[in-house]
């Protein structure tokens, strides 16, 4: 098939736009990050509080991905394989984290677990701290990334239908076996894609976590919060060095994402 003739104007507009709004700022971030040289960048990255913030960000990311993968699989299953009253409502509810502003998500948890909540005395007696502590940050991250995995799987599950699974069940396969042998191979790539999206979103999460964190340096500061604090303290080159770390992580995720998209696309064609 012959390719269509290239139209230069839209392409140029698109390229200029991308250069201005995406490439240029990124270049500035990277230049600023390395303004003290490679050694300076490394010193900024390995600073004690930065490392702790990175660890916390990774921890909440892993937790969000694990929890949301499990939840996403169950939710997608429940929404495509059974028919019952209230299914639509459930389907809509899953999307709440996408439509609610993250700041409000944070406030919801402050109201639920904070000092004015009826749950607070109970939590105090059990010596459990939720908000202004690590569990709160994980909960907030899980909340904002909740729909990502299930939203990717549901369309695929709907598309493949139940015929193969029913056939396997008739031949005597158990639920776990059906999932492993029939369902998983179908949804493998969309599941991976959802996980990548969930990872990216949880690493960058700012709003909800900012409300709930209390900004305890070295304990409840995630990377994005740490960047904001550094910036407000006139520490521009450390702030941009840490930003560049997030940018690098994001680029890695983008590469993984396009690999997944590419291979997933090829898989479906076969």
């Amino acid at each position, binding site marked *: 098939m012959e390719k269509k003739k290239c139209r230069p104007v839209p392409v140029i507009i698109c390229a200029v736009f991308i250069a201005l709004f995406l490439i240029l700022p990124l270049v500035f971030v990277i230049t600023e990050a390395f303004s003290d040289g490679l050694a300076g960048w490394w010193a900024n990255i390995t600073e004690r509080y930065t490392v702790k913030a990175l660890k916390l960000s990774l921890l909440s990311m892993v937790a969000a991905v694990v929890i949301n993968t499990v939840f996403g699989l169950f939710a997608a299953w429940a929404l495509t394989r059974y028919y019952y009253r209230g299914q639509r409502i459930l389907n809509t509810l899953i999307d709440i984290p996408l439509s609610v502003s993250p700041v409000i998500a944070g406030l919801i948890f402050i109201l639920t677990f904070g000092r004015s909540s009826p749950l607070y005395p109970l939590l105090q007696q059990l010596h459990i701290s939720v908000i202004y502590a690590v569990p709160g940050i994980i909960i907030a991250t899980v909340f904002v990334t909740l729909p990502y995995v299930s939203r990717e799987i549901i369309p695929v599950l709907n598309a493949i239908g139940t015929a193969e699974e029913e056939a396997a069940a008739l031949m005597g396969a158990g639920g776990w076996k059906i999932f492993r042998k029939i369902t998983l191979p179908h949804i493998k790539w969309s599941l991976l894609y959802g996980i990548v999206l969930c990872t990216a979103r949880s690493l960058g999460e700012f709003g909800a976590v900012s409300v709930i964190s*209390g900004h305890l340096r070295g304990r409840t500061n995630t990377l994005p919060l740490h960047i904001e604090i550094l910036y407000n303290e006139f520490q521009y080159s450390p702030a941009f060095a840490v930003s560049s770390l997030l940018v690098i992580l994001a680029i890695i995720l983008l590469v993984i994402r396009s690999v997944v998209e590419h291979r997933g696309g090829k898989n479906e064609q076969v």
Partner: protein
Amino acid sequence: MKKIRKYIILSLCVLITAASLCGCGSRSDGNTVSMINVSYDPTREFYEEYNALFSDYWQQQTGKSVEVLMSHGGSGTQALSVANGLPADVVTLALEADVNSIMNEGIIEPGWVEQFEGDSSPYTSTIVFMVRAGNEKNISDWGDLAGEVGVITPNPKTSGAARWIFLAAWAWAENQYGADNEDAIVDFVGKIYRNVLVLDTGARGSTTTFCENGQGDVLLAWENEAFLILEQYPGEFEIVNPSISTLCQPSVAVVDEVVDRNRSRDLAEAYLEYLYCDEAQRMIGRYNYRPSNPEILQEFSNVFDLEMELVTIDHFGGWVAAQEKYFSDGGVFDRIYDFQR
């Protein structure tokens, strides 16, 4: 099998997460005790050094080292977090009113102002002018701000610093036109706010507007923030000390509910008490706050303008009255801001 290995890895991840969740509850292990100090934005560098000093002292006294976890942010926001359950052992905030708002939740007991010397303010600051190098507009005192100049100051509705700034201008006008002549005072302060080019929500925002974005001829700022700007932008700006300003007293307090729960009252009180020792007071001066100890303040007479007349909040009848009269909805500031539009 490959798949099974995947599940094992997955479940390991869950285990690790669970384990680290359980581990984060402990507050002390053997020889290290930890405490939380919730403070506001510009104190970061000072407390970093002070925490090391205090940790050495506490080690000598008790044989245990102290790890102080810091939290910085806007003073009002920080107070709100503590009121919502952020487990701070001590708060070191910008305004008495912010500590009072925590007190009103029943977390800090009334009478905290008397607990430490100098109204529980181990360091103070004031409001000064910051002009571009050369001071082309010849700004020397509050009177010049009503002329043809561009002024940068934050919004008194949202910023603590901005309230001190408003009151400082008010105090100068009272001195100029007489305390009874309120029409003239309102008129003068109104002229200043008509000259405001950008009314940011916070003090740091105004600093950025003035220094980074190059707006305006004069920035009204905290004295300690002004010295920080001089260090950050050498040779670009000058400090102008007005004849009258306000004595801003940042407040420190022990958070009673939290220290009783953690049995850390001794530690928390010692932490704040030690801010008044000579060594800490000198450190305060080095970080451009005014030490509350008058003798040590004299040692910094070449840094701070000690001739300035500083008006305290008592002059305005305390924070509750001042808030009501000047900054509440429909208060004096709203009237000024209205006829501006």
